[in-house]
């Protein structure tokens, strides 16, 4: 179709935009603080973790524990929100899916974009903390941060496609995912440094892509480095899950309107 490209691109952008706006409007409708919630929630948790681990557990770390928490918590928050939210991406859009024939992948993409944008908007807060504690930006951020963004995006999107689809057929998945993500949180070095993990549990770090990513974000932000093998394992997980998610979604999508 000649000359249709600019309009098709404009249309794709608009479709994504209205769906993301819809999510945002629905999420924050009737809340006074609106978007600020996406910052307040992780910060409130940071305060609780700080009190518990700093004063109850007498935890000692090389960097200030507040800064340590903030550098990992937002990345975790992005993952946890996106993955739990994804289970509802298709079911929540059921009325649209059964009535309008739009490309179904946008139902998942809109939720994904929403959480990605929230994370990007939270990053300045993280930078603010770093400056307050005397950590400046680093040249290596130019490639490390985009790389971490790409790996975590692939991981989140792959899981989102997979879980959104499977939840149509097995509604218990919502509960399982909520429980699973909470368990994964405790197994991921978000509130404790990876050095606390005994060597014989080291394989857990390779089996859990979020371990590599949270450690990666923290190391990149604070020291301008990443652990290659660990991030490589996370990237392999991300690629595999993205492939699997896209395949399951593609195979099942023609049935969505019937099962939603």
């Amino acid at each position, binding site marked *: 179709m000649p000359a249709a490209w600019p309009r098709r691109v404009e249309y794709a952008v608009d479709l994504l935009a209205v769906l993301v706006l819809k999510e945002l409007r*629905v999420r924050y409708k009737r809340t006074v603080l609106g978007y600020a919630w996406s910052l307040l929630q992780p910060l409130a948790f940071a305060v609780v973790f700080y009190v518990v681990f700093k004063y109850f557990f007498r935890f000692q770390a090389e960097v200030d524990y507040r800064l340590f928490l903030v550098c990992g918590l937002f990345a975790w928050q992005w993952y946890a929100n996106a993955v739990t939210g994804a289970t509802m991406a298709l079911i929540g859009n059921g009325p649209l899916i059964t009535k309008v024939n739009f490309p179904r992948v946008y139902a998942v993409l809109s939720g994904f974009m929403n959480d990605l944008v929230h994370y990007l908007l939270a990053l300045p807060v993280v930078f603010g903390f770093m400056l307050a504690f005397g950590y400046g930006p680093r040249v290596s951020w130019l490639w490390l941060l985009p790389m971490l963004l790409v790996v975590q995006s692939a991981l989140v999107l792959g899981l989102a496609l997979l879980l959104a689809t499977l939840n149509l057929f097995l509604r*218990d998945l919502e509960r399982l995912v909520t429980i699973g993500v909470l368990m994964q949180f405790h197994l991921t070095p978000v509130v404790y440094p990876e050095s606390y993990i005994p060597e014989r549990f080291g394989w857990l770090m390779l089996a859990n892509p979020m371990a590599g990513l949270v450690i990666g974000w923290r190391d990149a932000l604070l020291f301008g480095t990443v652990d290659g093998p660990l991030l490589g394992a996370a990237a392999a997980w991300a690629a595999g899950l993205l492939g699997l998610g896209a395949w399951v979604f593609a195979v099942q999508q023609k049935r969505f309107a019937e099962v939603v």
Partner: protein
Amino acid sequence: MAGGAAAQGDVMIRFDGVTKRYRRQSPHRGLKQRLLGGREPAAWTTALCDVSLEVRRGEALAVVGRNGSGKSTALALAAGVIRPTSGGVERRGRVGPLLALGAGVHPDLTGRENVELSGVLLGLTRREVRQRFGAIHDFSELGDDVDQPVRHYSSGMLARLAFSVASHLEPEVLIVDEVLAVGDAAFADKCHRRITQQRAGGLTMLYVSHDVHAVMALCDRAMYLDGGRSVAEGEPAAVCRRYYADQGLEPAF
């Protein structure tokens, strides 16, 4: 999508021996049933059985039938939302929304936000929706309520919003499922006039309604579905009489 304007007489929707079966399912298929229920034999419901139809450009086909006769399944197939179990469905042109009450309307969004959302979902860019917003708003007669969340709308107001959006998006094929019945008489009349006017401009329509008078006034042909099968097709008045007679009703038309 059909880029150029299709010529008069083009087939816009064709069903070729279409059968649609749904797997009957327990209301909430959960893990428990999966683990404990074992393999129960799949139960199927046939919603539509060997239905063939053709709607040409500029034509309006009505589908009548009792509740559960397969009308909505036929419309969903025509809209491309579901796929047939067997047989073929061909569509061309921009197929407008499946207009049913509250279809694709998000209760937490305002009328205005819903107009944008449905407009884009139906294939327009945001710019194109904005250009039409004034006309949509005027037609709906919703006034300031357009900035209220749709949650607070009455079913009549929802019908106004839904029809106004759908009829101003200039679809090549408009699919209407029982939406006008909810509006008040004046609005129903306005919708009928709008449909008549757009039909004169070449709009193709697939129309489901229990209002036989509307069917006869707005459509060229009608199809009567009973138990998923097409039992009568042809001139609207004749088909509607048959439909009434089958229900033991005296046709007063």
